């Protein structure tokens, strides 16, 4: 786990992620400027750092209603503005980027931040970026597998010899600069289904598992499939960290949390995914066994501890800001995390 900069004795890590969406607040119908949104995200990371949160990550989406296409640039500003928090992408769409350039960016980010940078690599759920960046969507799977593999080779070897289908060959290539501690933690982003988790497991890569909602036990299958595949691939599952990522919102009561959060998620998903979030499913989100962490601080603590018991994961990452949530609500959530949720989670999951 040291390779991935995770100290088990400290217990479950708590992180925050943003997709970098730039959506109107559905309650007022108003949308802040792109400039303001990017500055808010940097400020959000600063507050998370000050609150003692472990991790902060920013997504890459090349489509309408998003503002952090150049997520590595935003992360550089965050690196400069923060002290201790780990910073990462969530995720970098490696399929449509050059792994050499991605590695150069994130190794630099690691140096700026004093060894705090990580990469989460994913495949994109929408595919507009393939046209934009000049790739064929028919190569969706292969582009990811080949480029992700190259990214990992660059991470593990200072001198790389490589040839593949989608990029010019590398002959005794040195990809510089090198990260502060020699290598970066590189995670594979996995949606809810086990197929991608199995690939991550075989390759012995840490898994970043994102989920929308549903019973905790459903995603346990993905976790199990990952660990089984790791074992079969000759890796020790105990050495491979798992992160889970999903909706989070804390308020005084679970009913208030639902009320505050629902319009943002429903309207935001309509715009970015073409379908809203059914109210019936959202109402189930406050159930102790539902994977969405929505409720009062005490209810959320119990949910996260239950998830930790089921998954045995090393990091939980909360998405709070989707769909134009006003900044003061994010501040309030960070405050609740810092004062109530984080201390309890650390207390119950740290191994002394």
């Amino acid at each position, binding site marked *: 786990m040291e390779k991935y900069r995770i100290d088990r004795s400290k217990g479950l890590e708590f992180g925050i992620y943003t997709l970098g969406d730039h959506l109107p607040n559905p309650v007022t119908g108003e949308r802040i400027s792109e400039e303001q949104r990017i500055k808010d995200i940097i400020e959000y990371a600063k507050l998370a750092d000050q609150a003692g949160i472990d991790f902060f990550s920013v997504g890459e989406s090349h489509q309408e209603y998003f503002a952090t296409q150049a997520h590595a640039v935003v992360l550089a500003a965050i690196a400069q503005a923060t002290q201790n928090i780990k910073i990462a992408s969530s995720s970098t769409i490696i399929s449509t980027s050059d792994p050499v350039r991605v590695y150069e960016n994130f190794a630099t980010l690691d140096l700026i931040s004093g060894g705090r940078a990580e990469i989460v690599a994913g495949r994109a759920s*929408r595919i507009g970026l393939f046209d934009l960046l000049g790739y064929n969507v028919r190569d969706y799977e292969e582009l990811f597998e080949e480029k992700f593999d190259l990214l990992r080779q660059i991470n593990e070897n200072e001198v790389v010899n490589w040839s593949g289908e989608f990029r010019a060959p590398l002959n005794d290539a040195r990809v510089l600069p090198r990260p502060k501690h020699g290598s970066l933690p590189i995670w594979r982003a996995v949606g809810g289904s086990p197929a991608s988790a199995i690939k991550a497991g075989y390759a012995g890569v840490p898994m970043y598992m994102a989920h929308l909602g549903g019973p905790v036990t459903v995603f346990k299958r993905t976790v199990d499939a990952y660990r089984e595949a790791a074992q079969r691939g000759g890796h020790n599952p105990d050495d491979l960290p798992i992160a889970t990522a999903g909706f989070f919102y804390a308020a005084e009561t679970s009913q208030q949390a639902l*009320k505050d959060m629902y319009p943002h998620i429903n309207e935001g998903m309509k715009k970015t*995914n073409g*379908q809203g979030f*059914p109210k019936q499913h959202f109402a189930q989100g406050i159930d102790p066994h539902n994977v969405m962490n929505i409720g009062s601080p005490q209810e959320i603590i119990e949910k996260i501890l239950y998830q930790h018991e089921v998954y045995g994961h090393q990091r939980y990452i909360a998405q709070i800001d989707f769909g134009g949530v006003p900044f003061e609500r994010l501040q309030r959530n960070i405050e609740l995390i810092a004062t109530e949720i984080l201390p309890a989670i650390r207390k119950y999951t740290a191994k002394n």
Partner: protein
Amino acid sequence: MNIVALSGSIVGSKTRTAMNAVVKELKEKYPEEKVTLIDLADFKVEFSDGRNYLDYQGDTKYVAQTIMDADAIIIGTPIFQASIPATLKNIFDLLPVNAFRDKVVSMLVTAGSSKHYLIAENQLKPILGYMKAQIVQTFVFIEESDFYRKEITNDDVIFRIQRLAEDTVLLTRTYTKIREEKEEAEYGF
């Protein structure tokens, strides 16, 4: 209420003739409701390649978006080779898995033989059910002999089309009302 009448074939005239009758009925009886007719013969729709429907362009995007925005959909389909036509199946394939959640879907079938009667029952309804539609159970089945040169000549078919329009609107209003009441009273958010 936003009603879409989808004529699912690019071949022949009977399904379109029947859909014209449905649309006329809806517009006369329910002038306050919005009714949009999509005849796939008027559009160039791409084959589904698995992308999110928002990522298509042109006619494909228009057709998918119009269906997604509907509260009620009346599907008209002929029977080809003992099944629904590929053009109609392609529309289903373009949409997300839960595309018909909170939508009412009703059916009108034209066929060359009465032996095709159960095809909607056995092949179309399971698709609609999978896609979470609230299905109007009774569909209108129209045979070749009910038409004469782009006119429906069987009064019984006209009456059944009137009832189909009425059932579709009634069921949509009912579900919408119940859902609103439930959401306000029970969920409280």
